[in-house]
């Protein structure tokens, strides 16, 4: 994005080299999967979506969370986000690219992916997801690029970008809503068949995404000497707290409806996740770790003394991010298939090959993010000098 | 204006030369002449048309059979055929002698037989 040559520094290039290595391993694993088929994954007849689609769902949330910077900055004129709004947009770009990659590696016939366009099918939510995700990618590339270029030339951004930025706000909500609709409209998958799935997704996204942004802001402060500013971090923390509370409130609502109504099919998946079902409960420890980390992080974030301490803030944000990742990036997708339509509990166990591909895609995301952030920060700093 | 023309131009020319190699090197391979099947005097449509259009015809057939339940084809000569690669085409032609030879020559990968079965191999 920037004309400024990226100056070599050992730490940065070792990081890039490390990511390249992980990407290469992931690519090798993907070639293996292309050769032998998805039988190499833990997925099967009963749990037919696994870690790929779960990561996809989670990353859509991270992508959507950029709106938590764009909205206060552009709609409410919250100036303190001026320095980091582009970091949000660039995080969205990396996250959407990861989403698209996770969908492609999950496909049985990736070479036919364009059939989604060739035989466009408006009654399929996947079609709409394809549209909104690609649209969101384009919008964020455009907004981030135009704003940064203007800054580099020390001129105000062109007027035509304003409507695009405003469009990005409802668009961000749409990507996660449509992703929730992929799941929330399926008869017989009771964990997902809930009208609050979309708001729950948004709540967890607006907690997990800004948590990650806080971590990234603290990181660039340390490694690139680029300070987002106290007010920006404090505002982001407020967003994280409210969204996190909303998320756990929604989870509580799910529990109430399922267990107070006492309808077995509505309870089964939750029982499997948190207590085990038919003597099987591979995800039980994960879900309790997730609950403890999430509730614990939120509890300590409520106190000004603790959340104003940057070390502690980082710890709490990391805990909350991991908590929500377990909840959405593992539990929610897998347990939707458990029990299966025959009321049997058949579990899913991730395979090494699957993990390698997943890590490879995370590394691609990290690489894109690193390169974009480096460019953005170079421009920002040059401008400030 | 070409950026860094001294380096770029020769590489570009070399690229075009390599890319077009198959066209100007003059193929030594002979166009294959598959045997005329003994079973029928005429193909579904005439041979020249089939040579140019068999892929579109097969694509249309598979679409109509699977999606529209239209399983019989009336040729321009008014003859009626079953729309079937295995039961109609391969009833006269042999995959190994017919499909494979031309496709190897044209270097076009055949995917039909990843699913559809070649009766030569299956039937005793």
């Amino acid at each position: 994005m920037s004309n400024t040559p990226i100056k070599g520094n050992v730490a940065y290039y070792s990081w890039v080299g490390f990511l390249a290595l992980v990407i290469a391993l992931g690519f090798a694993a993907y070639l293996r999967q292309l050769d032998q088929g998805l039988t190499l994954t833990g997925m099967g007849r009963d749990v037919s979506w696994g870690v790929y689609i779960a990561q996809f769902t989670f990353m859509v949330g991270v992508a959507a969370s950029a709106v938590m910077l764009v909205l206060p900055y552009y709609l409410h004129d919250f100036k303190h986000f001026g320095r980091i709004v582009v970091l949000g947009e660039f995080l969205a770009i990396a996250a959407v690219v990861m989403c698209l990659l996770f969908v492609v590696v999950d496909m049985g016939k990736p070479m036919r992916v364009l059939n989604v366009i060739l035989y466009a099918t408006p009654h399929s939510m996947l079609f709409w997801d394809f549209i909104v995700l690609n649209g969101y990618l384009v919008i964020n590339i455009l907004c981030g690029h135009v704003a940064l270029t203007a800054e580099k030339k020390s001129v105000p951004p062109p007027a035509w970008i304003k409507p695009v930025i405003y469009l990005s706000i409802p668009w961000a909500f749409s990507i996660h809503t449509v992703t929730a609709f992929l799941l929330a409209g399926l008869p017989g998958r009771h964990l997902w068949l809930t009208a609050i799935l979309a708001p729950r997704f948004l709540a967890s996204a607006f907690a997990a995404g800004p948590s990650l942004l806080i971590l990234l802001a603290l990181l660039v402060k340390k490694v690139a000497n680029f300070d987002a500013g106290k007010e920006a971090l404090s505002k982001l923390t407020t967003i994280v707290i409210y969204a996190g509370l909303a998320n756990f409130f929604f989870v509580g609502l799910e529990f109430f409806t399922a267990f107070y109504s006492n309808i077995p099919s509505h309870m089964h998946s939750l029982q499997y996740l948190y207590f085990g079902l038919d003597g099987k409960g591979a995800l039980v420890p994960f879900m309790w770790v997730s609950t403890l980390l999430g509730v614990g992080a939120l509890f300590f974030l409520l106190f000004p003394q603790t959340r104003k301490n940057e070390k502690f803030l980082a710890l709490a944000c990391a805990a909350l991010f991991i908590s929500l990742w377990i909840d959405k990036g593992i539990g929610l997708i897998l347990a939707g298939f458990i029990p299966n339509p025959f009321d049997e509990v058949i579990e899913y166990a991730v395979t090494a090959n699957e993990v390698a591909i997943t890590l490879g895609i995370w590394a691609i995301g990290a690489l894109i993010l690193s390169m974009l952030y480096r460019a953005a920060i170079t421009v920002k700093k040059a401008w400030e000098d | 204006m070409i950026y860094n023309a001294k380096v770029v131009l020769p590489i570009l020319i070399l690229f075009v030369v390599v890319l077009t190699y198959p066209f100007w090197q003059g193929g030594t391979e002979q166009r294959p002449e598959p045997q005329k099947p003994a079973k029928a005097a005429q193909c579904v449509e005439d041979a020249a048309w089939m040579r140019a259009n068999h892929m579109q015809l097969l694509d249309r057939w598979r679409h109509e059979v699977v999606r529209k339940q239209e399983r019989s084809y009336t040729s321009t000569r008014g003859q009626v055929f079953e729309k079937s690669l295995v039961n109609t085409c391969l009833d006269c032609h042999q995959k190994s002698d017919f499909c494979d030879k031309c496709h190897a020559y044209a270097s076009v990968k055949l995917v039909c037989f990843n699913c559809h079965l070649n009766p030569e191999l299956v039937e005793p």
Partner: protein
Amino acid sequence: MSESRRKFIQQVGGGLVGLSAISLLGKFTEVEATANTEVKDKPAQIRWGMVVDMSKCKEGCTDCVQVCHSRHNVPDHGNAKDEIKWIWKAPYKNVFTSKSHRYQQQGQLEKPFLTLCNHCDEPPCVRVCPTQATFRRPDGIVQMDFHRCIGCRFCMAGCPYGSRSFNWRDPRENLKQLDPHFPTRERGVVEKCNFCAERIDQGLNPLCQEACKEGVITFGNLNDPNSEIRKLLGEKRTMQRKTELGTAPSVFYVVES
């Protein structure tokens, strides 16, 4: 990066986005029309359906399963994870999950019931498929177009009956005998029972119905009040799987003879 190269990349990127938007708009209007004819057409004269009377089924007999799977080249991978099934037997308690499981007749819960694709009148799999690779024929058969399937497995998440299988591995690895009259599948596509659409189009009945010597299966046109299947449905008490989901299955089970 030089200024002109940057311009070039921007223009190419913008051009690609524009082109795909244009082609999408074109496709959108074009395919909506086919979506209407292919999916929404409700049967005027024919809706194929099946009645299964398990009281007639012999214990341990798998004739229908054998014939179906061998004639449709359904492989046996020998493990539950990769398993592919078109028609099979499963215990009553697993097939009828929403029916009462308490105080049932001796042995009822474990009694095997035949199960297969229900060829729903309102099929969720068809609703969710992003390419119309699975679609409802005007005669009610929910059909797969293996040429088109992208292997996203959305239909498997959508099907509340567990009737769909995915080819996690190459099916030909584990097919000892091949039937040339029906294609195999390729790795990476979803498959399921097709009510023997290839035979129905020739005026024949499904293989499972033909193979059963006990007369467990009755197949026919649900929209014809004089058909054998409608007479049977008029005489016997029957039920369908998970009717509360609004899928309107076309497979009925006789409750009592």
